């Protein structure tokens, strides 16, 4: 009896080690609420069958035996291309009736395919998180429910019929000039102005008066700061003192930025370049084409402040670094909305504000 006593206590005490206890295990003084849950769930896990995935082996094997890839491939109505088949997109889209049309630009075999985006620019994050809702709040105009704005006069005026020649004549333009301005709708949650694209344009007169190296340096400088292939343009106007004839001299380089490139460029402009300009009051308040696009210029020394040119400054002939005009196209319909957006994004304006 005395010999069996320790074995009985051992048999009673052994499972207690493995049994779940309400107290925390170990020397940890802190108890977590999830500890009890985990110990309870460990006992609950015992009810689960452990061979759940192994039960259906017979059916799986049947499915594997009945699977015939060759017959399946033959039964296809339209065969898949071979694995090594290399598709070449046609160069031109010849319309919906042509049998051979290029794939959509998202297709990697398309000639227009651009991989990316590879980053989330800070400009976009700032716009989405704060600027959009702040502009929405600033521009909010309250109309009571049931309010209907009074109907406006038609923008194109009709001719008063005091002359017989007025019949069937095209409508008159608006008062004060024949320009039909864009219509501005009140800003609500679905037409908050945002950046659309940026154009960097550089007119290099020495490309006509001296040699082409000026244009080449200007082009590669624009490419360096914009990450976009530039296009060159011929002069459309005649400048007699510089000897520039229209259609003859290639004098300008232009880069158009969209999407990610545009946002990175704008971020560099606002964060790096503009704060370092000496005595720069801002963009002139009269700038803009009255349809929501704001233009300002940078001189040679200011273009040289872009980080891509600055780190590699020695590789550009210093006198040939171009000045440029930067046009910021926004989705705003008027200049005042565009200016509001740009001031929220960090571009200062000075002087008299003209809309």
């Amino acid at each position, binding site marked *: 009896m005395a010999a069996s006593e320790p074995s009985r206590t051992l048999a009673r005490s052994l499972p207690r080690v493995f049994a779940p206890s309400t107290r925390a295990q170990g020397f940890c003084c802190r108890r977590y609420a999830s500890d009890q849950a985990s110990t309870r769930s460990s006992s609950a896990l015992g009810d689960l069958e452990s061979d759940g995935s192994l039960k259906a082996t017979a059916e799986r094997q049947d499915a594997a035996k009945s699977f015939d890839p060759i017959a399946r491939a033959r039964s296809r109505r339209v065969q*898949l291309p071979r694995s090594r088949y290399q598709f070449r997109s046609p160069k031109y889209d010849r319309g919906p009736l042509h049998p051979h049309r290029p794939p959509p630009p998202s297709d990697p075999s398309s000639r227009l395919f651009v991989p990316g985006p590879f980053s989330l620019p800070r400009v976009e*994050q*700032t716009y989405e998180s704060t600027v959009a*809702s702040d502009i929405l709040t600033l521009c909010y105009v309250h109309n009571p429910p049931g309010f209907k704005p009074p109907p406006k006069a038609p923008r194109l005026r009709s001719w008063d019929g005091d002359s017989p020649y007025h019949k069937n004549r095209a409508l008159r333009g608006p008062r004060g000039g024949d320009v039909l301005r864009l219509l501005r709708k009140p800003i609500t949650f679905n037409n908050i102005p945002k950046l659309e694209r940026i154009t960097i344009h550089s007119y290099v007169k020495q490309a006509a008066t001296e040699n082409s190296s000026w244009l*080449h340096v200007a082009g590669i400088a624009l490419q360096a700061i914009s990450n976009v292939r530039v296009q060159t343009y011929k002069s459309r106007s005649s400048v007699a003192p510089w000897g520039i004839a229209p259609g003859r001299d290639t004098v300008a380089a232009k880069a158009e930025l969209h999407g990610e490139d545009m946002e990175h460029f704008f971020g560099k402009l606002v964060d790096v370049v503009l704060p370092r300009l000496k005595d720069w009051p801002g963009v002139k308040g009269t700038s803009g084409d009255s349809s929501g696009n704001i233009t300002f210029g940078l001189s040679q020394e200011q273009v040289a402040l872009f980080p891509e040119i600055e780190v590699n400054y020695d590789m550009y002939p210093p006198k040939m670094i171009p000045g440029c005009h930067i046009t910021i196209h926004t989705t705003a319909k008027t200049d*005042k909305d565009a*200016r509001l957006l740009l*001031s929220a994004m960090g571009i200062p304006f000075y002087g008299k504000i003209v809309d």
Partner: protein
Amino acid sequence: MRSLTLSPVLASLANVFKIPVSQTILRPALPLLNQTTISKPLTPGRQETRATFSTSSPLLKQKGRTYVDKRITLIRYFLHHPLTPRPLRFSRGRYLRHWTIHRAWQLYQANRRRAKQLELQRQWQAMNAACEELRTGAGDGGKLFRKSMIKTRVFRDMFPIEYGRLQTEGPGEGWNHDWKRPQPKR
């Protein structure tokens, strides 16, 4: 020969940057032209090469010769170099993988855009309800509401320049917390 396995693009780049990779240069035309035109003038009368002890370029000393800056030559080389990436050619598996990822990314973007739009719409409707309450339920005959709808300075003063700052992780160490906006002179 490791140099023979070098791709033409790499070889031409190495050629331009004067990295000696092999004896056989794949695109020798332009850099050799550079060396001959920039450092040694091609003069038919003087074929022998003499060591010049002047640091200035010898071409500058001659009259009637156009001196092309070496940097311009390099810029022209890189501007016109057809260093375009090869078109992506995927086989079936990779193409399907690309397609799946592309569709998933489009779906994610659409969801994000929609969530943003709904959030803006929610904010707008909240403003609408608040203004309606201010107009009718404030008990001041709508005076406060009318004051709040005056927007003459919104488009004149615009955002303060301290607001126009792209978001960062946080103000850096150089941030002056005691800075106050200087008051304009009256």
